[in-house]
């Protein structure tokens, strides 16, 4: 007689989960993303990378600028898992710190570009008329300049450095978000639920934030993941070109630029590991974007 009870228990949990998912779209999307194969790969890799980046100082006994006596260009071993560089520094430590910088700079770029861009896009889409024309022409002009070139000009104005790179890439991300958000706003503002909210006397700000923003979230998340991937590449490129941090700060771009000088020394670990870490970030961000698209695709629903 006791046998049926667990099934009831499980179905109650299921019920609660379903209700929870129904209430919040974010929960629903997250649930669907971690059920996707690509989403799982992305989440696991990103979690590992973030963990490594956050606890770099605990995970390795060395400092990123510490020069270890007698350990010049050592190949990977138990003492130095990823080898050492030409200035006797532990590569694992330097890569983890570089990874931290890479993630922080690119996340800041998204944190700067997304709110401003989405704000401009929503404003343009909601108000229409000359406000829309002026804002969108400005955005089009920004889009006319290729990303990396704009970044270099802004760096010439602001001066070089990591904070400057984050600001520059954030500015560069504005038009992409603005275009997307405007398109969504144009689509959503005619929907019944918006008209219903308006007829109930909701203010435009409330309609935008509480109704439209929540409904247009998934495509913006996809865009955020892709913009972050672009920012990771751009950050590495600008640092590689010497327009970013100055020594001894290790960024992935600087590590690669140093490794380029030592290609003929046979130190394969010097170039291979920074490349590998960068590829892992990029592939997992792209997979994450794919998984969100898949998770919010109406044809693939009801799973």
């Amino acid at each position, binding site marked *: 007689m006791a046998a049926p009870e667990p099934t009831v228990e499980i179905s109650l949990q299921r019920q609660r989960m379903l209700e929870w998912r129904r209430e919040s779209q974010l929960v629903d999307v997250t649930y669907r993303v971690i059920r996707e194969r690509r989403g799982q790969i992305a989440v696991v890799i990103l979690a590992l990378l973030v963990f490594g980046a956050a606890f770099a100082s605990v995970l390795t006994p060395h400092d990123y600028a510490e020069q270890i006596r007698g350990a010049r260009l050592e190949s990977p071993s138990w003492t130095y898992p990823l080898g050492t560089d030409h200035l006797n520094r532990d590569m694992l430590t330097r890569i983890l710190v570089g990874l931290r910088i890479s993630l922080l700079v690119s996340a800041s770029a998204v944190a700067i570009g997304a709110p401003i861009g989405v704000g401009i896009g929503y404003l343009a889409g909601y108000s229409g008329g000359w406000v829309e024309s002026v804002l969108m022409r400005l955005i089009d002009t920004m889009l*006319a300049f290729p990303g990396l070139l704009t970044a270099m000009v802004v760096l010439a104005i602001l001066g070089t450095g990591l904070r400057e790179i984050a600001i520059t890439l954030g500015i560069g991300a504005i038009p992409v978000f603005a275009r997307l958000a405007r398109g969504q706003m144009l689509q959503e503002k005619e929907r019944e639920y918006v008209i219903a909210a308006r007829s109930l006397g909701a203010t435009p700000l409330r309609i935008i934030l509480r109704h439209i923003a929540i409904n247009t979230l998934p495509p913006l998340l996809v865009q955020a993941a892709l913009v972050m991937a672009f920012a990771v590449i751009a950050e590495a490129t600008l640092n590689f070109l010497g327009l970013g941090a100055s020594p001894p700060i290790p960024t992935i771009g600087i590590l690669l630029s140093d490794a380029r000088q030592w290609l003929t020394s046979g130190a394969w670990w010097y170039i291979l590991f920074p490349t590998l870490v960068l590829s892992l970030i990029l592939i997992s961000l792209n997979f994450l974007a794919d998984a969100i698209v898949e998770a919010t695709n109406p044809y693939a629903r009801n799973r």
Partner: protein
Amino acid sequence: MTSFMVRRSAEAVLVVFLASLAVFFAVRLIPGDPATLIAGDDASTEDVFEVRERLGLNDPVVVQYWDWLSSAVTGDFGTSFTRNQPVGSVLSNSVQPTIELAIAGYILATLIGVPIGIMAGIKPGGFADYFATAFTVSTLGIPNFILGLLLLWVVGVELGWLPVSGRVAFSDDPLQALKFLILPTIAVGSSLGSVLSRFVRASMQEVMNQDYVRTARAKGLKERDVVLRHAMRNALIPVITVAALQVGGLISGALVVEVVFSRPGFGSLLIAAVVGRDYVLLQALLAVLVAIFIAANTVADITYGFADPRIRVR
């Protein structure tokens, strides 16, 4: 068609003009007084004033812009103060390596992207499609300058098959020039090739479901003719625009890859201009690059008009 071309070119000229304004004023925002930089550290106030007067920096900004634009049109971009050379000759000395790399990269991208995209699009889920996906994922994970570094390391250093860095002009020794060009071209062209293959695949997949493809099959054409004569020609039309829009990314990619392979071109020039805050050189470089992008987009639009008659009747 002529009126379409004229209208489209006029629009392009207007955009170039607006872009030149943007470039000019953006460069003015660079901190530091160029006159003080040019006159040197131990110059007296009079010297600095004299330099300002000579460069026309005391004139209103609008007059400065007009002076710059009117001489830029004739090819006179002023004198670079980090190199003490007329910017025009600095640019013409280093434009060739960049252009040849960009063109080679573009050709390679088309040669990779179009066939892969077509094969993947004909049979989604087939072998070619898996190959296309693998190719896409690997180019997403490896940005072009890192691909350049890896090629430099494996093919150039470890295997020693191709020269590692530098450039030989085609006019000096075509075979040698080609050897120097191969690795940078692969680095520049692969990512664009993968972008193109994705678009061609999507476009091809759509076209293969069209009625006229079914008609072509129904009247007994060989599958090869259906694909090559009916489907492909229509599938490639939207790709023209995509391909042209990528020119900006392609050239910025070429600029970075040039630095990886130590090729003397716009890339190293641009970095020198940014680091040295050489505003005369920087604004000339930007103006030329932006003009190239806009020209590419215009040419694409016009080609699109030729390829698809529906476009030009608007």
